[in-house]
């Protein structure tokens, strides 16, 4: 029996829901090509097989990944996340980012940070940080600076309200063009929001009722389509008046 041409066969699994154990790509026909594997895929001898249930996605020419939404986060480099300080050591803050391991935030990873002006974060402080190093065997390393060394909105988030969502909803809120729910809420209300790819969202506004409204609207919008989100926001605004 001849082997199926891998190009047309692998295209048939793209955008389909795959479960752990499925073999989605045959490497025997791709001798000199480089393939980049993202989340949820691993190499199993001569085939690429699936580790997590989700939708198989491709970004041409050669990037494959499984898109799935969970309540825990797997750290990736250059992701921006919201972390909560759990402990402070001599040269690191221990920060919980909903990952299998605690993140480490060096005390000098702040703009203009020296040994003399180390920030004092209490246990429970919410921080907006960037993931600098992430691999599965070590604790992920975080930073409150961007690549050039500027503060760029990273750091502690004061006041406001933080709630937890799934990673899929966080990705949807961060998509560009802007997510319909955030746009329609922004047309009538003014609020400040910070979204972490690890499934944490922080909202701040002038009055507590606005904060509650925005938070509940976002939490309810996970499985709604764009049109349904707009309708939900219109209904909420009508009830306010």
């Amino acid at each position, binding site marked *: *029996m*001849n*082997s*199926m041409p*891998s190009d047309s*066969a*692998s295209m*048939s*699994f793209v955008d389909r*829901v*795959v*479960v*752990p*154990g*499925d*073999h*989605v*790509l*045959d490497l025997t026909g791709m001798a000199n090509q480089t393939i980049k594997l993202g989340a*949820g895929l*691993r190499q199993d*001898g*001569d*085939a690429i*097989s699936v*580790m*997590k*249930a*989700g*939708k198989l996605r491709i*970004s041409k020419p050669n990037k494959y990944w499984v*898109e*799935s*939404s*969970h*309540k*825990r986060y*797997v750290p990736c480099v250059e992701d921006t996340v919201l972390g909560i300080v759990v402990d402070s050591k001599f040269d690191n803050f221990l920060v919980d980012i909903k990952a*299998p*391991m*605690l993140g480490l935030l060096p005390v000098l990873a702040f703009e203009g940070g020296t040994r003399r002006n180390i920030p004092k974060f209490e246990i429970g402080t919410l921080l907006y940080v960037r993931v600098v190093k992430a691999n*599965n*065997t070590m604790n992920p390393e975080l930073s409150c600076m961007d690549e050039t060394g500027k503060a760029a909105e990273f750091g502690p988030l004061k006041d406001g309200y933080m709630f937890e969502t799934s990673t*899929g909803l966080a990705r*949807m809120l961060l*998509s*560009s*063009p802007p*997510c319909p729910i955030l746009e329609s809420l922004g047309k009538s209300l003014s609020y400040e929001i910070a979204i972490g790819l690890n499934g944490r969202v922080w909202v701040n506004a002038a009055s507590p009722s606005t904060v509650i409204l925005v938070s509940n609207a976002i939490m309810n919008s*996970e*499985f*709604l*389509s*764009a049109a349904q989100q707009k309708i939900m926001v219109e209904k909420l605004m009508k009830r306010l008046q």
Partner: protein
Amino acid sequence: MAPMEVDRADGRTSNQLRPLSCTRNVLHRAHGSARWSQGDTIVLAAVFGPKAGTKKEENPEKASIEVIWKPKTGLIGKVEKEYEMILKRTLQSVCLLTIHPNTTTSVIVQVVGDDGALLPCAINASCAALADAGIPLKYLAVAICCGLTGSRSVILDPTKIEEKKILAFAYLVFPNSPISVLPKGSLTEDSEPIEAGIITSVTHGAMPVVDYFNCLDRGYAACAKISEFLRRSMESQAPSDLTKTT
């Protein structure tokens, strides 16, 4: 020898399973959860983790899995400890333990209803809950109970009343059937396709070897159907994508 049709109390044929139902993400606080029911046997499984740290006896170079079995009534005794051990060994062979070393994943199994085939139902529920939590898995485990009646015929998925009357039964756990781009039979180990392997087999009572192999064949065929059901249940519960970003 013509297969003897057994009269079962609920009118099923010997190869027929009870109605299956699987719901995932039922618990708000758990990182992954699933409720699996086969007829009146209902099991709720919750997964927490991976969380940092392992216990002293566990190998820190691998992730460890901890199983807690909660019976419907009564205190935890030897039966529950045995179920915990079997479930732990089964899940250890299904999960990829080297991806997140030095972490612990806790699986809590709560029995909601027990009407026979309890351990296979719990294994199916735990696997669905692990997939819901996003724990990396090699494949999904699919479990079934095969009973051997006095007339040497095999019945699948016995109820509690049937379990009391049969000679012996076996809980069998197989890997799920994958969809694959590879030509059939290319992944082999000792000229047997990988999908025909078996993960766990627990037997109660004594049965002749030839009948045990008969149970294996029937169980394998039935697990292919359960595997299809699991795949369809995952497809239907996958959230529809809202924005297509390229």
